[in-house]
């Protein structure tokens, strides 16, 4: 009782860590009772905790004893299952090595115990209070829609997609999709085809090193006979400018193609997940016409157009600030205590 009273006198600090592709966003909210006093976003160019991030977070620990550190689970061995009965869970995942939480009577989300321990170990220098599943985050974010519609609900992060299908609060299908692995798989397919081509070419023609003459190479060095010309400033500047222009063009092309690729990759992942849902007899298949996307990775309109044009879905996109929603969940947890 006295503890609760004293707790109200102190400000609470909610530190929320979101690990992205190449950076980590730390969103901090300072609250007094139900009022938000201050909120801060800080981006660190690391995907694991470094000393700068540690110092930044530790600075808040000194302000109040009531600080809560939350993180979004990134384990690739996580998912959501349409049951909350332990005996049935075995059908969908390896329950022995997983930690699960029933969101309601009808569905649960789970993650690998090993990965949980790995996260705790990684952040042991600051300690963690909450590890949230993206499925729980998504269900909280779309709680106004999940209860009333039959639709796909997708949370898009930088490298991951939390894919779920709900029919009026009842989960039909849930899968955590890893874009990195998917990409690797695709690349491996491409690489293997290339290797095959190379092998065949080598097999047919072959290269006989003994046939190569050294003289040919020596002749080619004659072009550099007057090597002092290369040292002149003008020629070097011109060369560097040209190089820069080329680099810029290449960079722009990379960005646009990367964005395009990522959206297409997301689309293909969603498509394949939906196919699995339709085909896998484990799941109660229903025809889905609508998709709600929680956009936490600033996706372009391409994804929406793909889904609309290729799959004929009604697409609704909502921007989500993962840090803010994570913070809301942490607050709800703290109020539950």
């Amino acid at each position, binding site marked *: 009782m006295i*503890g609760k009273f*004293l*707790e109200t006198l*102190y400000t609470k600090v909610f530190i929320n860590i979101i690990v992205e592709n190449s950076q980590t966003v730390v969103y901090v909210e300072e609250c007094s009772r139900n009022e938000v006093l201050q909120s801060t976003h800080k981006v660190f160019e690391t995907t694991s905790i470094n000393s700068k991030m540690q110092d930044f977070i530790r600075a808040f620990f000194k302000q109040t*004893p*009531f*600080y*809560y550190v*939350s993180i979004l*689970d990134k384990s690739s061995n996580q998912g959501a299952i349409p049951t909350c009965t332990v005996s049935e869970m075995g059908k969908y995942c390896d329950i022995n090595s997983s*930690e699960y*939480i029933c*969101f309601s009577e009808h569905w649960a989300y789970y*993650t690998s115990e090993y990965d*949980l321990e790995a996260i*705790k170990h990684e952040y042991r220098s600051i*300690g*963690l*209070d*909450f*590890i*949230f*599943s993206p499925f*729980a985050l998504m269900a*909280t974010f779309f709680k106004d829609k999940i209860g009333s519609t039959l639709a796909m609900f997708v949370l898009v992060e930088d490298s991951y997609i939390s894919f779920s299908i709900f029919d009026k609060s009842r989960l039909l299908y849930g899968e955590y999709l890893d874009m990195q692995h998917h990409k690797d798989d695709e690349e491996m397919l491409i690489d293997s085809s290339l290797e095959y081509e190379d092998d065949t070419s080598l097999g047919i023609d072959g290269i006989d090193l003994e046939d190569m003459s050294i003289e040919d190479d020596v002749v080619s060095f004659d072009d550099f006979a007057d090597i002092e010309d290369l040292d002149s400033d003008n020629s070097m500047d011109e060369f560097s400018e040209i190089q820069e222009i080329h680099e810029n063009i290449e960079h722009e092309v990379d960005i646009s193609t990367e964005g395009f690729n990522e959206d297409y990759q997301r689309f293909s992942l969603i498509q394949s997940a939906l196919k699995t849902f339709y085909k896998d007899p484990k799941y109660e298949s229903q025809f889905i016409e609508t998709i709600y996307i929680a956009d936490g990775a600033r996706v372009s309109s391409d994804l929406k157009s793909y889904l609309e044009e290729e799959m004929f879905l009604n697409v609704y996109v909502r921007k989500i600030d993962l840090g803010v929603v994570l913070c809301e*969940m942490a607050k*709800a*947890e*703290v109020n*539950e*205590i």
Partner: protein
Amino acid sequence: MRYSYIKPRAKTIFTKDIQLLFTFFGVTIFMLFSTYAFLLFRDYRFTQEMQDIKEQKNQLSINISKINKQIAVAQKQSLLAEKIFTKNSVLKDSINNLFDLVPSRITLSEAKIMQNGLILYGITPNKDVYNFMLQAPLRSIFHRTYSSFYPADNGWLRFVSTNYIDEEELSSEN
């Protein structure tokens, strides 16, 4: 509803800083109270010692008065002893003088010394020896002298000499 996979760490307002602060204040307060208790104890002991000393003082003053009384008694006794000693020495001198008075030819058999008188019993060869050699000095000392004789078996005379000093005359002489 619980969303998180892990439970939050227990939060308490008693952080390390606060604990250190409380420890510091606790030690300070403990030292203050222990000093206060020590002073109280010393004060109590001091009061007790003071009472003891007062009691001792009273006891000593009672003893002093007792001893003073004893001293007074002793002084009185000493005075008395002195008096008696003086009297005895006077008496001794008187007896010496008395025996010096008695001539060798007269033998005393008994002498009674009284407050204001002297009775002598003895044997004398004859009355003249007694009258000239003993009675004459006795008369010079005592105011009244009475002598009586009766014959002894060997032909000598037994005598009883009764001598008195009159107090009135003695005071008028002084």
